[in-house]
């Protein structure tokens, strides 16, 4: 059991900067996901933790021990790769090989391999050659191999991506159960937001070699630190619309349209020195109506718009609404959609509760409210 600290890690490959001053703290016993699009540097970061890659700059600590210059062979970590990276031999050998070099006795090895294989659910396959296994079982072997040597840290590099959806769900549950029992530090790299949101205790969202945000699933989804995190998470990603604060009445406007009259928000933005900002809100938090009945709800932003595109996704609709040259998406359940009887080019009003919106600085795309 160990906590991991990465301090100012940079890595360049030739002229490409894969990581820029990444600092992270991974707590003892937590399942920590690193999420980001391909090429964001997440795998490089994992390989640096594993010792397979040396950072150009920065230090890696396991607890308080500086392991930056310690090679992978003696870092005592286990790694599970996307394509399982099994040795072309029997299941037993695969699990046993790392133990043999750790100096376990023959009897101990046999006992331990059996135990772990049983736990992972491949007990019956021990004597089979790995070519005889299906993909899910192969990945289980890789997992068993990782567990057998009782490492300080588990490192996962998109281990479930190649599995079919149902098996993936089941394996995720297994992994979660395992983590609860072992209470081991695990780092899990993935490009799949659902995987990260589902599995992780905390998530680091990365883009272009930079950590954009670290937080729980709820945090990164609902309170994204940057527009990238908001856009990257969710399907569809967060909507961003440019707004301006009216200096006279402190209302909030999109172009010439007032969307929020209450001065509370406008004042806060002006206090921060922002006359303009990006308004961010999630597509599923929008209520669409054709008419706003009676008095305006002081707790909701109201945006007039015209429906441009309607997309049907089976379980839901996504409606694209245009207002003053910008656009946002609204996610509606099929029943809501049918009730409204919406069509393209219809005029609608979009209501978003104030506690469901974020504001971002236009200059650096960071959240301010």
């Amino acid at each position, binding site marked *: 059991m160990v906590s991991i600290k990465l301090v100012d890690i940079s890595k360049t490959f030739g002229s490409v900067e894969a990581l820029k001053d990444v600092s992270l703290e991974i707590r003892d016993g937590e399942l920590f996901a690193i999420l980001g699009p391909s090429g964001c540097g997440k795998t490089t970061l994992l*390989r640096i933790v*594993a010792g*397979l890659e040396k950072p150009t700059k920065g230090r890696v600590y396991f607890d308080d021990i500086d392991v930056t210059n310690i*090679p992978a*062979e003696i870092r005592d970590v286990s790694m599970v790769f996307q394509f399982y*990276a099994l*040795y072309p031999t029997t299941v037993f050998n695969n699990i046993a*090989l790392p133990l043999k*070099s750790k100096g376990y006795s023959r009897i101990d090895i046999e006992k331990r391999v059996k135990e772990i294989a049983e736990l992972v659910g491949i007990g019956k396959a021990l004597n089979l050659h790995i070519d005889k296994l299906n993909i899910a079982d192969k990945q289980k072997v890789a997992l068993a*191999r990782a567990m057998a040597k009782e490492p300080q840290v588990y490192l996962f590099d998109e281990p479930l991506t190649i599995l079919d959806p149902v098996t993936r769900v089941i394996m995720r549950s297994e992994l979660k159960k395992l983590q609860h029992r072992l209470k081991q530090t695990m780092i899990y790299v993935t490009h799949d937001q659902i995987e990260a949101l589902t599995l992780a205790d905390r998530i680091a969202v990365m883009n272009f070699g930079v950590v954009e945000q670290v937080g729980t699933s709820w945090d990164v989804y609902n309170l994204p630190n940057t527009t990238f995190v908001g856009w990257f998470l969710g399907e569809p990603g967060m909507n961003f619309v440019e707004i301006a604060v009216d200096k006279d009445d402190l209302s909030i406007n999109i172009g010439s349209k007032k969307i929020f009259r209450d001065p509370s928000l406008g004042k806060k933005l002006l206090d921060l020195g922002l006359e303009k900002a990006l308004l961010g809100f999630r597509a599923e938090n929008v209520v669409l109506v054709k008419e706003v009945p009676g008095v305006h709800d002081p707790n909701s932003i109201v945006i007039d718009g015209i429906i441009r595109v309607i997309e049907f996704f089976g379980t839901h609709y996504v409606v694209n609404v245009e207002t003053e040259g910008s656009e946002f998406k609204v996610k509606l359940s099929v029943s809501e959609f049918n009730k409204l009887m919406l069509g393209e080019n219809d005029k609608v009003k979009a209501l978003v509760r104030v506690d469901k919106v974020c504001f971002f600085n236009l200059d650096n795309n960071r959240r301010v409210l």
Partner: protein
Amino acid sequence: MRKPFSKEFFNKGRMLNPWLMILPAFLILLVFNIFPLLWSLGISFYRFSVIIREAPRYVGGLNYINVITSAEAWDRIIRTGIYLAYALSLQFGLGLLLSLLLFEDFKGKRMLITLFTIPLMIAPVASSLFFRYLFDENLGPVNNFLKSIAGYGPLWFSSNMSPLGIPYALLTVVLVETWIWTPFVMFLLTAGMSSIPQDLIEQSRVDSIKFRHKFRYVILPYIKPMIALALIFRFMDSLKTFDSIYILTAGGPGATTELISVYIYRVAFERWDFGSATALSYLILVIVIFMTNVFMRYILGGERS
């Protein structure tokens, strides 16, 4: 439907072009390979000797029977077998060692690789001449060196038995051939190693498994095809070893280094018995084909189950 050989068919150029394209290559193959092959196969059934001053005469399988029953021919074949065993094991042992060395990353690796290509770039005749001088019993630096430190230099081109169980002359040929061809084996095995998935190499690093396990479970499975390939190449090539022997020992002393290739040359161009020589060549061809199949099956068989 498009009818074959209709105008449209040719207009589309679907059929004609491919044949036109391969025609030159095919002609070259026909004139320089296929025709001589068939012609020589014909000769092996004729009594065709320049010395006896008679027209080639069809003798059926007589040449083959003569060769098979010839003690001399068998002696050369066995000699060749011994030579092959020594040469191939040395080339493979060293080749593997070097390729494993190059498998690791270290400074100066590229430089080393460049150096290793040198033996392959020099014509075997040239390097043999060079070694002829190096190993010269009286003037050669090798013996000079040995004499200065051990007080004794072996007679490298004699039929004396060396400590390795073969005559010195044959050993010298083996050593020279090994010098020339080890890099070739090394390069093939290195190519095989480059096909090992990066994941697997890294997995073995993280698992810090023992070297012998790494060799057996990570490296060997991926270089097996290359081993087979190298073995087949080297086996066939070694059977044809000629130029180095011709320069180093000319087959001597006596018949100590007279391997099958040299022997066939002698039968053909010193005894002028083309019939027997071609018959022997074809027998060797059969052996080569047979052995190639054995190698293929033995090395690749395990994976094709």
